[in-house]
Every structure is written in structure tokens, then in C-alpha cells.
């Protein structure tokens, strides 16, 4: 009996230890620490998955020098929300077809998630997602940007995104002729 109890306790402590290792600590460029579940990180980010598999995860905070704290906060936020929103069965299948699944329209919570971001934050998040190899987050954020572009004229797009038009008049005319089919109805 006593032995069994001891065993149980030992198992419990082991479980606790495992639970401890269930999270990954990430460190932003300005030194802030964020925790995210290891499972979600590995599933959502190919880069983090590689780091976890390769053992290059630092318990005191894995340095992500390229990502600012705001962007990283959004990333972690996204990971948590994603983990909460998916039932476990779908989770398994999504982990299998992670790299190959065709794009699905953003879900309601994902829409809300990107809609509340400012231009700057969205931009940072795109870079962070790309850096961390988070396909879904990249899809959702890029989809958001494409929605901002949709139906706008080139001039409007230049205005919205502060893009400088570096074409000369001749070049513009050249493109218009080259792609006349796209610019003019017959």
C-alpha cells in the first residue's frame, strides 16, 4: 500500500515536471518574456517546431531577436486562441496536413483578431509570422492585407500603403500595353 502511494506520488511529481516543460518561453527583441504551450508552438510554427525538435529551446527564454514585444504578444495571443478554438479531432488532422492543406477562409475569431490590429501591428505580425514559419497566421494576415487592397485603384493603393510610384510615364504606358488585356475591356 505504502509503496503504491509512493509510486503514485512519484508519478504525480513527474507529471508536474512534464507540465512544466509543456510551455516554451520566448524572448522578444526588447527582452520581454512570453510563454506559449509547446504543443501549440510546434504545431503552428515550423521554425519553433524545428527548434523544439532540435533542442535549441532555452528554458530562460528563447531569444527571438527579430521580433518586437508587441508582435510577439500577438503571436502568443494567436497561439492561445487557436488552441482554444479547435476541437482535438480537428487538431490532429490539421497537424498532419499542416503544410499541404489548401487555404481556408479565416474564421470569425481570426477575422476579429486581425481586424483590431493597427497597420503597424499588422505589418509586424506578418513579419513575425513569416519569420516563425506560421503558415496559418501568415495566411490570415496576408488575407487581411489583400482585403485592404481589393477593389482599389493603383492610386488608392499607393495612398493607403504609402507606396512611392517610381515608374516613369513611358514605363507606365509600356506596362499598360503589355498587359492591355488586364487593364481594358475589349
Amino acid at each position, binding site marked *: 500500500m505504502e509503496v503504491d502511494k509512493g509510486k503514485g506520488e512519484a508519478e504525480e511529481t513527474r507529471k508536474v515536471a512534464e507540465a512544466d516543460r509543456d510551455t516554451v518561453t520566448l524572448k522578444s*527583441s526588447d527582452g520581454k518574456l512570453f510563454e506559449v504551450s509547446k504543443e501549440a508552438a510546434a504545431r503552428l510554427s*515550423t*521554425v519553433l517546431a*524545428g527548434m523544439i525538435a532540435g533542442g535549441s529551446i532555452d528554458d530562460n527564454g528563447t531569444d527571438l*531577436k*527579430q521580433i*518586437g514585444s508587441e508582435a510577439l504578444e500577438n503571436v502568443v495571443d494567436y497561439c492561445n486562441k487557436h488552441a482554444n478554438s479547435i476541437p482535438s479531432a480537428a487538431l490532429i488532422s490539421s497537424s498532419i*496536413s499542416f*503544410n*499541404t492543406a*489548401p*487555404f481556408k477562409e479565416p474564421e470569425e475569431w481570426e477575422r476579429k483578431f486581425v481586424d483590431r490590429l493597427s*497597420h*503597424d501591428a499588422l*505589418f509586424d505580425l*506578418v*513579419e513575425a509570422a*513569416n*519569420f*516563425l*514559419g506560421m503558415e496559418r497566421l*501568415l*495566411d490570415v494576415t*496576408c*488575407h487581411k*492585407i*489583400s*482585403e485592404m*487592397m*481589393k*477593389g482599389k485603384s*493603383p492610386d488608392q*493603393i*499607393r495612398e493607403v*500603403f*504609402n*507606396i*512611392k*510610384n*517610381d*515608374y516613369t510615364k513611358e*514605363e*507606365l504606358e509600356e*506596362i*499598360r500595353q503589355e*498587359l492591355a*488585356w*488586364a*487593364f481594358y475591356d475589349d
Partner: protein
Amino acid sequence: MHNRRLSYHVVGACWSRRPSPPSYANPLSSFFSSASFFLVFRWSFPTKNDSLSSSDSARPTPLPFIMVEINWFELRIAARRLYYPTRSLSWFSICDLVELHYGYPVYRWLGSSSPPYRSFTSLALPDGRTKKVAAIHRRYKERGTSVKQLPLSYAIPSSPPAIVLPACQLFDGMLQRSHAGGVDWISALPDAVLQHVLGFLPADEAVRMSIVASRWRHLWSSLGRLRIVWPDRWINRVLLGRDPACALDEVEFVDEAAVTYVPTMQEQDYHRRYDGIP
């Protein structure tokens, strides 16, 4: 659905070259050399006694488009061995061969969680069983019946995992960008991300984006993803104008208006010849 005939028409085509995927994931991938030919199909199942020109209710249900990746070399071999011993490959014989073989490299289908042509995929058996395939195909042609179903996973290999390159190389100096107001932040993104964004725009709109700035001029020709809003008159132009060295990974077809299926003359001819539909 089993008693229905499968018909299709080709929407577009393009050449593509992609690095050979790792063979452990997909043993069949070793068949495919680097050059591939893509066809974009639209499939539909008219009911048995359907006439394509009949009233709305009898109109074949439009099904999702699919992209098929074809290996030219293997097509030739198959053509010689199987049932086009003398004929050169015409558009429609290609379609026929794809019909036989498309279990191998159906690249991606979109819009539906379960492929509606499940019974048909069983035609695509691995090599070495060509006789049986031909027999199935003949029987299918004669009677329009469905063939014995095989597990889908057997007929269609999962596509190989994308090769993940370390993103770090792209991002050295990512934070050097200034954060001042009015910053052109979209141009600071790497080309790959910009193209990702363009991939979510309708294809012709993505082409028109080339006029925004010189950096954008050629982005459209190497997009990895296309969103085609049907009916799209320019799909062939977009596909053929692509940089042949760039792989097309995903195509999304969006049916904005309800599609009314009006076969072209060629398609009508094809239906007459092969489907027995007047």
C-alpha cells in the same frame, strides 16, 4: 453519384518547374522529373440521361475545379503503352490519360472537403496494373458505371510536405526598418510575402497591381497561389503569362455568380464522341 458520368473541361494550362519533393513522403514522386505541366479542370457529373443543352434543372452540377500536375514524359510513355499507340497527344487524349492517371498527382482540389469523384479515383492504380486500369476504363466508357472503390488514400498519395527553408536568411536586418509615420511598410516585406498577399486577390486584379510600383511589376508572374473568380476571361492569359520557372502551388476558384454551364464547341464535340450525349 455512382451512376453519373464524369465530364470535364479544361480551363487553363501552364508549365511549371519545381524542385523534386522528398521521395520518402511520396514514393510516386520519383516518377516526376522537374518539369510538369498543369491543367486546370472543371469537373461535372451530368445525370445519365442528361442533355447538356436541356433545361436548368437537368444541367450538370458544377463541381470544384482541380489542378492536375502532369508529367510530360510519363504521359508519353503511358500514351504509347496504353491506348494511344500511334496518335500524337491531342488535348483530349491528354484529358483521357489524366482521367486514368490522375490519382498520382492530383495536385490540389479546392472548395470541397470531400472529393466528389471518389469512385473515379480508383482508376488510378500504381504502375504495373495497367491492364486492369485499361479494362476498368473500357468498361467505364461502355456502360458509364462506377468501378470498385478503393480507399482514397491508396489512389491519391498525400502531397509531399513543403520544403521549409530557414526563414532567418530572409530576415537579417528586419528590424532596421524605421517605424516613422507614413512609412511604406508594405514595400519592406519580402517578395514572397507580397506574393502571398497578391495570391488572395482575384487573379486579374493581382496582374493589375503591377502598375503600383516597379517592385510590383513582375510579382504577378510568379505567384504561388492564384484566386480565380469565375467566370474569369483572362485565366489562360494569366496562366500562360506566368514565369515558367515558378511552381504554382494552389489555385482557388471562387464562384461569384451562379455558374451556368455552357460547353464550348470543342467540349460539345468531346461529349458527343465520348459520352454519347447528343
